[in-house]
């Protein structure tokens, strides 16, 4: 009898999701152009909603508001058209995303489609963007395959680098600190057994080896793990001065809390996605100081500071310290390319690829359809998450090592 019930649960859930999968009505056809249709599908519900709701969606909303408040998108003839937004929730499933993008392209006839959130989702949508001739400004996706993708999908742009970039930068920091005698050359490493964690740890292993760093503990954990005590205890006993976790936001928060409880004080603490979230700094206060992760900002960049302030005022929440500002910059690039070339998607894509743009990042330019001027490693310092690598980039801060112990 019990097994019958479980089968019922599954069957009912399947039927219900099929019911819910049918979308909402398409927009009306415009005869005279009175607006520019910008569409996007994003994870507003489901497991990806947490990430999309911090890095991507608020920036889309902020940008649309900024543009419409200024009278609309400017076209080459100086005319301004307001943005009409078509938004779909992909409910964190790639099937739903593909359907929504297809609908945006064929039924809603959107002028431009903004990229979804997440590496896998951008890959899932890329063939569609390509087939319908839309430029795809993929920000929240970390992939080492970007050089191949830009050949396969010529209008795709990859703006957050790849695992090798981040892992290589981290290896460089540890190597230098070990040479100075600040750290020993041992690393304990954990990673989530899912897209981001696998990509990063696969890149990190050879990068550490090449830098002469010994990985003394290297384990993966399943997504959804909430108790990290066993891993923290092992890492503590391993004798490594550096602890690296390629983790998702809930894991990052849990690792931070549980390390404090266990009095685990590695001299270098590097955590994954979520470290750059505003709530992380808020929750951990002084204790965040010294913790490293991916991304960062140049604290002296006034444009970026103004953007962060406006983001908080308009959306009611702060931007993260990694993909947020890049997302906004990608939209500014699109806006400027439309101003220069109009609504011709072919010409706009070409302009995005070759043009130079003034954005919140400063002067921004794609290299081989990729944004390469990025902060590969950042560290919490004085209440801000600042970029520390590449160290030779203008505005880079000096890493603080060893990090202070937990304050109770």
């Amino acid at each position, binding site marked *: *009898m*019990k*097994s*019958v*019930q*479980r089968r*019922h*649960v599954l069957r*009912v*859930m399947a039927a*219900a999701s099929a019911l*819910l999968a049918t979308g909402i009505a398409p927009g009306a056809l415009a005869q005279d152009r009175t607006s520019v249709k910008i569409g996007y599908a994003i994870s*507003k*519900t*489901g*497991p990806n*909603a*947490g990430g*999309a*709701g*911090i890095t991507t969606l608020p920036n889309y909303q902020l940008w649309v508001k900024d543009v419409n408040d200024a009278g609309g998108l400017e076209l080459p003839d100086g005319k301004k058209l307001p943005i009409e937004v078509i938004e779909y929730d992909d409910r964190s499933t790639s099937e739903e995303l593909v359907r929504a993008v297809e609908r945006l392209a064929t039924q809603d006839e959107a002028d431009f489609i903004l990229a979804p959130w997440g590496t896998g989702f951008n890959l899932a949508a890329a063939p569609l963007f390509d087939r319908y001739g839309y430029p795809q400004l993929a920000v929240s996706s970390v992939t080492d395959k970007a050089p191949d993708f830009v050949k396969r999908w010529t209008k795709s742009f990859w703006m957050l680098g790849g695992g090798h970039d981040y892992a290589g930068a981290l290896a460089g920091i540890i190597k230098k600190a070990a040479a100075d005698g600040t750290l020993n050359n041992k690393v304990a490493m*954990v990673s989530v*057994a899912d897209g981001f964690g696998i990509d990063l740890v696969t890149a990190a292993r050879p990068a550490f080896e090449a830098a002469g760093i010994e990985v003394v503990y290297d*384990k*993966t*954990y*399943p997504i*959804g*793990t*909430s*108790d990290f*005590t*066993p*891993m923290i*205890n*092992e890492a503590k006993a391993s004798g490594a001065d550096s602890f690296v976790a390629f983790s998702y*936001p*809930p894991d990052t*928060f*849990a690792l931070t*809390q*549980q390390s*404090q*409880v*266990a*009095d685990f004080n590695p001299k270098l603490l590097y955590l994954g996605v*979520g470290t750059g*979230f505003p*709530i992380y700094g808020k*929750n*951990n206060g002084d204790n965040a100081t010294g913790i490293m992760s991916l991304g960062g900002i140049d604290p002296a960049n006034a444009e970026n500071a103004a953007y962060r302030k406006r983001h908080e005022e308009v959306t009611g*929440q702060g931007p993260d310290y990694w993909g947020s500002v890049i997302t906004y910059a990608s939209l500014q690039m699109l806006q400027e390319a439309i101003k220069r070339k109009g609504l011709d998607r072919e010409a706009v894509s070409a302009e995005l690829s070759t043009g130079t743009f003034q954005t919140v990042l400063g002067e921004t330019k794609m290299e081989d359809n990729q944004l390469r001027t990025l902060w590969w490693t950042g560290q919490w310092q004085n209440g801000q998450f600042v970029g520390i690598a590449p160290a030779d980039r203008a505005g880079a801060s000096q890493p603080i090592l060893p990090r202070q112990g937990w304050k*109770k």
Partner: protein
Amino acid sequence: MLVTAVLSGLVLGGTYALLAMGLTLQYGIARIMNLAYGETIIAAAFLAYVLFTGSSVNPVLGLLAAVPLGFAFGYFVYGLMMRPLVRRARSRENLEIDSILATFGLLFVLQGVMLVLFGSNYTSYSYLNVGVNVLGTNIAANRLLAFLLAIVLGGGLYLLLTRTLWGTALRAVAVSPGSAPLVGIDVDRAARFAFAIGGALAAAGGVAISMYQTFTATAGVVFTMKALIVVIMGGVGNVLGALLSGLMLGLVETFVATYLDPGLTLAATYLIFLAILLWRPAGLFGRAAR
């Protein structure tokens, strides 16, 4: 090392047990397979969060607000949504399907309300995140609290159900809802009570986990699934079963993570789940299927 593993396993298991006990009451006694159970947990977690960050009410006091609210919510939902289903159900299977559909809808309503109120962001705060030395091992005070809560609530409920007339009536309804009226038990009232207590337990669990776990408005289903595993392992409707299988699950996960590989914890969970169902199809403490 061994002591550490046992203690952290027990504490982790306490969380699982705490989350599962309400569902076992709702499913076992009221016969409502409540798919919106996890949403109740999340709602309580948000309540604790709002109380803590908004008016700095500590979550332990927050329990005093969340538990009665959870009870009232369960009572209300049963009266409004479930009673008509129970009335028209021709058989137990029928009621189960209907209640699954209805609570599946409720899941989205609750989730939608929470998304509107709180957005989809990760939410967490820090309370009692200090180590407590137990037998030479540092255990997080907030997790220890959840463990104690699970033991107290689980043990208390077990005593209530087995030692009081009222509890006996509830168990009678669980065993044979058809015959219970013959001995003067108001089945409707008992089921409503059980459902409401389930809601109160879910709320207690929600407040407890909000102290140490990051949650989002859409994370409820994860808790429902975990609770369902514990409930089925322990035997549907059996509070002691839920408590023990929750603790066992925590121990197994911690031991596997410590001595084998953290990557195998999920596999181990489902392996013992399978083994128990093969060995005792009705769960550890369940009676054989009628």
